[in-house]
């Protein structure tokens, strides 16, 4: 049943490819606002590139989180999923996996392009991609909690950033400073270790919390 769910959700994502592009386009737009707003000086852009790209990635993820459970809630599939004879946290894990594949992973591929546009020094590219690969699953996992809590609410889209952004701060700190470390030519293994540990923690906590959140949201 979980495999079937995975297949179904990937198929659905593929059918609505247009929706998937929206966060990516948003990601690019946010990043290109900074040269316009602050300064196009390559020297200066290079120093803020890591932060800009990572802030953009956080916001783009927030934008796509609404899709995680919303349509399934509206057409009754979510009820059916909660009635599957497996713990709901497994279902949440499948949902998170699909969200990451369609919304998190593409960010890691497109980020080097933004790095070039923002004049990110050479040493920063490797940690940028690595940190995105390692930390976007965290964003999806924590996001699932927010999406689960707000799924039944009409104004949920406004509420979610408020609930989730504070939890994203450790990711932002370590991921963007890993890029800074790469730029300065120093070791960024410690940053990755932290991100890995945080990923492990959220992998344990988030599915349980998100499943509980979904049950609460559906128990009107």
């Amino acid at each position, binding site marked *: 049943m979980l495999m079937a769910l995975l297949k179904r959700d990937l198929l659905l994502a593929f059918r609505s490819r247009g929706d998937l592009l929206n966060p990516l386009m948003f990601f690019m737009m946010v990043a290109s606002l900074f040269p316009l707003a602050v300064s196009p000086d390559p020297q200066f852009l290079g120093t803020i590139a890591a932060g800009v790209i990572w802030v953009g990635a956080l916001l783009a993820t927030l934008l796509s989180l609404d899709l995680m459970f919303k349509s399934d809630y509206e057409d009754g599939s979510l009820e059916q999923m909660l009635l599957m004879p497996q713990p709901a946290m497994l279902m949440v894990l499948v949902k998170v996996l699909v969200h990451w594949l369609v919304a998190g992973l593409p960010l890691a591929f497109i980020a080097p392009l933004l790095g070039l546009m923002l004049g990110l020094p050479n040493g920063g590219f490797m940690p940028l991609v690595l940190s995105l690969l390692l930390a976007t699953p965290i964003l999806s996992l924590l996001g699932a909690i927010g999406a689960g809590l707000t799924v039944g609410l009409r104004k949920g889209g406004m*509420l979610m950033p408020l609930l989730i952004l504070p939890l994203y701060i450790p990711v932002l700190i*370590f991921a963007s400073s890993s890029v800074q470390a790469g730029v300065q030519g120093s070791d960024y293994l410690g940053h990755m270790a932290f991100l890995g540990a945080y990923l492990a923690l959220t992998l344990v906590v988030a599915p349980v919390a998100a499943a509980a959140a979904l049950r609460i949201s559906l128990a009107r």
Partner: protein
Amino acid sequence: MWTRLKRLYHKMGSPKWFYEITTRWSKWFMAVGSILMLTGVVWGLAFAPADYLQGNSFRIIYIHVPASLLSQSAYIMMAVAGLVGLVWNMKMSFVVGKVIAPIGASLAILSLLTGAIWGKPTWGTWWVWDARLTSMLILLFLYFGVIAIYNAIENDEMANKAAAVLSIVGSINIPVIKYSVEWWNTLHQSATITLTKKPTMAPEMFIPLMLTILGFYCWFAVWVFARTRNEILFKERKTNWVKKLLQNGHKKTTGAQL
């Protein structure tokens, strides 16, 4: 033993019992808290020596640190109350969690304001991205999230449970957030006191701080109890014991007027 525990659990789940016991406790907490605060503040303001580096601005510590400590532990208390509510389906526990949120947020604001004011003479600007102030700001954001969820969900039971889940996740994240913010900003002064380590402050500076911390905790209890009693009154407004309570109270006030 087990049956006694069970009876205690049922008692604590009973709004009437909670209402009555906290009415009695509040007076004591109020008295003890006020004495502690008065002594602590007078001692701290007028009698404690000035810091040899920061001078007299250091006296802000006697409200900044209690407010910071209390707003952090209030968040944890809120999460624990939520957990108890979710696991044992104890309604009173949810109520306590709900009333802590605005109090904790107000203390976080107090901590931030006093921190900023303290920063002006110390660092020369009103706001510095110091590790502890930044963590406190994020804690305030976490409080905002919980309060926003109470406002967004109309159904009480759903709101309580959703806020409980959020505060539990938040409190699991607090150590991670604190660690990462401290790591991010290691340039600043370390925490003023740690409860486990021997204080590096002089005793005549440290004792009044302990007094105001304890005093703040007592007052916090009074605030939580008062708000909880309000919630109980409203929730139980159709029960006989509330009606009786109000009638008795009414008689008393008219008696006093005569």
